[in-house]
């Protein structure tokens, strides 16, 4: 597996746990998985990214119940469109967190707008040298985060983070006046 994944793996785990925690959902990482599999009703939400030396996708594959649990102002009779919308937003916020932290290591990319699909018995792609699959769980639900990336031969990450690359972190307010 490319050095990118080895360095990104702990950052992605930290980002995912922190993101769900900010929506009052406590999760733990169960480690790498061979592929995402959601037997119950679920949602797959993906956001792409493209940079000069890297491109790929970040995918959240989760039971519908988890997406609803993490939704502020959620209610019992939410339309599927609302559920997909929130899954997209979670995917967008997770990749946003990752992008912020990777930018400190000199890794830069642009994000696409996210998309999502709902269904039953969802399966992701198999983990391989270009795909990292991580399994997470709450007390009662399991979900997966996939990161696939193609990395150019000249790609490199800084050894130590450059903190000045980032002006403001999640949940923070920066006044520009």
């Amino acid at each position, binding site marked *: 597996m490319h050095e990118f994944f080895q360095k990104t793996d702990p950052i992605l785990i930290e980002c995912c746990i922190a993101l769900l925690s900010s929506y009052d959902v406590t999760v733990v990482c169960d480690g790498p998985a061979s592929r995402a599999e959601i037997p119950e009703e679920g949602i797959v939400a993906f956001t792409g990214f493209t940079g000069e030396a890297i491109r790929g996708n970040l995918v959240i594959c989760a039971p519908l119940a988890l997406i609803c649990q993490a939704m502020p102002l959620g209610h019992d009779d939410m339309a599927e469109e609302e559920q997909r919308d929130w899954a997209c937003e979670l995917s967008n916020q997770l990749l946003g967190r990752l992008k912020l932290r990777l930018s400190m290591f000199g890794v830069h990319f642009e*994000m696409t*707008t996210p998309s999502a699909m709902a269904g039953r018995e969802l399966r992701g792609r198999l983990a391989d040298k270009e795909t990292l699959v991580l399994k997470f769980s709450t007390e009662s639900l399991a979900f997966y985060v996939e990161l696939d990336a193609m990395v150019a031969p000249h790609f490199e990450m800084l050894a130590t983070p450059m903190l000045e690359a980032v*002006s403001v972190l*999640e949940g923070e307010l*920066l*006044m520009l006046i």
Partner: protein
Amino acid sequence: MSVKVIVVDDSSNVRRQVVVALEEQGYEVLEAKDGLDGLEKIRATSDLSLVICDVNMPNMNGIDMIEAIRQSPPRPLQIIMLTTIGQSAMVRRAAEAGAKAWIVKPFKKDHLIAAIQKLLGSP
């Protein structure tokens, strides 16, 4: 007369969170689903006081939208960016285009209200 605000975000859930938070405070809130929709509604609403906008959106992103607003005839319009992005280069670009505050999602309601009241005063 209530203070009029527009929230521009492609997520209906995020728009709803902002609408609920601001209506509780007495603001009148319009919604737009992307930068293009936002630009049309901003141009069509002369008594708008504040724009709250995401960056990463389909059709037109938030930075392009506020740069387009800047090229329009000057008007007293405050701008708050509400986004997942926090990179210094992007924050600088938004500031040059007239953004007065930057909040990274997930947002705290108190931060959003504090930023609005700093820019507009209480509703």
